[in-house]
């Protein structure tokens, strides 16, 4: 039982970070139909920025996180403006390819600047932990759950109660009608990229926490969060959060319970197995809706 609870805690923590990354995918996809394959590179860049600010520059950690989120927000909006706005009208596929290329370039750039070795994150939690019964609760994982929950709550409040959140939802439903109603749709798209940058940075922060550390392979986590998005339904924010948590728990549980004949790294495949299983039953994801075709 205690092993189960231990794995559940760790799964929830991992799932919370996946939820942030998955939300980053959804916020862009919903507004423009683009799957941002640079999401992994963005969370990598965010984590390295935090590490650089906190460790090398000596900025207080909380401030470093906020600054990195703002920087990645600016990066996302800037990337949209420079690289994507020019290809408006091209098939979505073209935009997706651009995000793949940008992801590779950013990842290579981070490696070139910071080297391939692991870095210190500079966080105040380190490996410190406390125990509840026989369960070990690391502060960084607990913080990950709390901060991710807060981040998700802020995102949903923004989406539901502000005029820019409303503009995002309207753009998702009907871009032409939104434009004719006087909403600057291009600015809405830039905003979704900025939000994805901020969400990716928060996700990167906790993915790089103990026992991990900022390293160039950190961005691969986005590929593991991707099943969460598909599973939740590509255009559903709630689905991204539910899917993210589910995938995190599945991944950690599999690493703990999978029989040895499945191999030692089966946990990395488990999210995809779960995704395929769910898609067989619900082709548009847990909370996705079948897109209506206008005839």
């Amino acid at each position, binding site marked *: 039982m205690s092993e189960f609870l231990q794995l559940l805690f760790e799964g929830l923590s991992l799932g919370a970070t996946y939820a942030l990354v998955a939300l980053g995918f959804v916020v862009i996809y919903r507004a423009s139909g683009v799957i941002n394959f640079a999401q992994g590179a963005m969370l990598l860049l965010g984590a390295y920025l935090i590490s650089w600010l906190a460790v090398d520059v000596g900025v207080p950690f909380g401030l470093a996180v906020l600054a990195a989120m703002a920087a990645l927000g600016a990066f996302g909006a800037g990337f949209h403006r420079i690289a994507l706005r020019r290809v408006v009208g091209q098939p979505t596929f073209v935009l997706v390819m651009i995000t793949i290329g940008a992801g590779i370039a950013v990842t290579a750039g981070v490696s070139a600047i910071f080297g391939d070795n692991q870095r210190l994150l500079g966080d105040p939690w380190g490996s410190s932990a406390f125990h509840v019964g026989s369960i070990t609760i690391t502060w960084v994982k607990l913080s990950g759950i709390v901060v991710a929950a807060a981040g998700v709550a*802020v995102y949903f409040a*923004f989406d539901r*109660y*502000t*005029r*820019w*959140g*409303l*503009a995002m*939802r*309207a753009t998702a*439903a*009907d871009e*032409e*009608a*939104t*434009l*004719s*109603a*006087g*909403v*600057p*749709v*291009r600015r809405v798209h830039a*905003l979704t990229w*900025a939000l994805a940058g901020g969400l990716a940075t928060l996700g990167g922060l906790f993915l790089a926490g103990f026992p991990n550390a900022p390293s160039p392979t950190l961005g691969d986590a986005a590929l593991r969060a991707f099943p969460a998005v598909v599973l939740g339904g590509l255009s559903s924010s709630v689905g991204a959060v539910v899917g993210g948590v589910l995938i995190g728990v599945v991944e950690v549980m599999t690493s703990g319970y999978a029989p040895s004949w499945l191999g030692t790294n089966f946990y990395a495949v488990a999210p995809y197995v779960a995704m395929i299983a769910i898609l067989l039953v619900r082709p548009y994801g847990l909370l996705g809706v079948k897109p*209506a075709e*206008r005839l």
Partner: protein
Amino acid sequence: MSDSLLCVRDLTLRFGAVTAFAGVSFDVAPGELFAVIGPNGAGKSSLFNALSRVYEPCDGTVTFEGRDFLRLAPRQLAGIGIARSFQNLGVFPALTVLENVMVGRHHLMRAGALRGGLGLARGEERRHRVAALEALEYVGIGPMAGAAVQTLPYGLQKRVELARCLAMEPRVMLLDEPVAGMDATERAEIADLVARVHRERELTVLLVEHDMGMVMSVAERILVLDFGVPIAIGTPAAIQRDGRVIRAYLGEELEAVA
């Protein structure tokens, strides 16, 4: 006509070898309810799309208050006071009625995403919510403010769209076949609403419509298109007597019989 609000001259639109409309000229005076009619395929929708900056005309000029209208981007139209409705409904089905209308207030609000996100734009949002509710009351769907638009019947969804147009505080409304796909009762209600908006809000309305009954009951002046060519322009009474219009709608044979 120097006192006209919208001035269209020799407007022509072709798609390759196909001419959607050619040589269309008319003026719309401030506060006028001007309608464009014509049989199916006459080029009404193409003309509407050219005037809402969706299609780029090949030739001709359009001026709005003396400005070159054809150099404006679609996103600038709301800012100069032009609101449009869509033939197949331009509503956001999953959003509530009030949210749909609030989208129309977006361009009148000032707070940026950051201030809004920090909850510092509450006062502004509240003011605009009042204006949006007022627009809903005006079109007669105030009590449905909280309902998801997709749960409403088509006629009421059209009212949501019209309320959003009104909430934009426009000076000109471009309406693309607002009664298409409606039954007789709904058509009469929407026609009433359009006439009331025009009269009470002193709005200029450019109506493109297939339905003769609606146009004859509300329009002050009418332009008739047939196969992309303007064949008549005038008051409803004059249009009803025009031989070319009757031929276009009823065909040549009938006249031969008569």
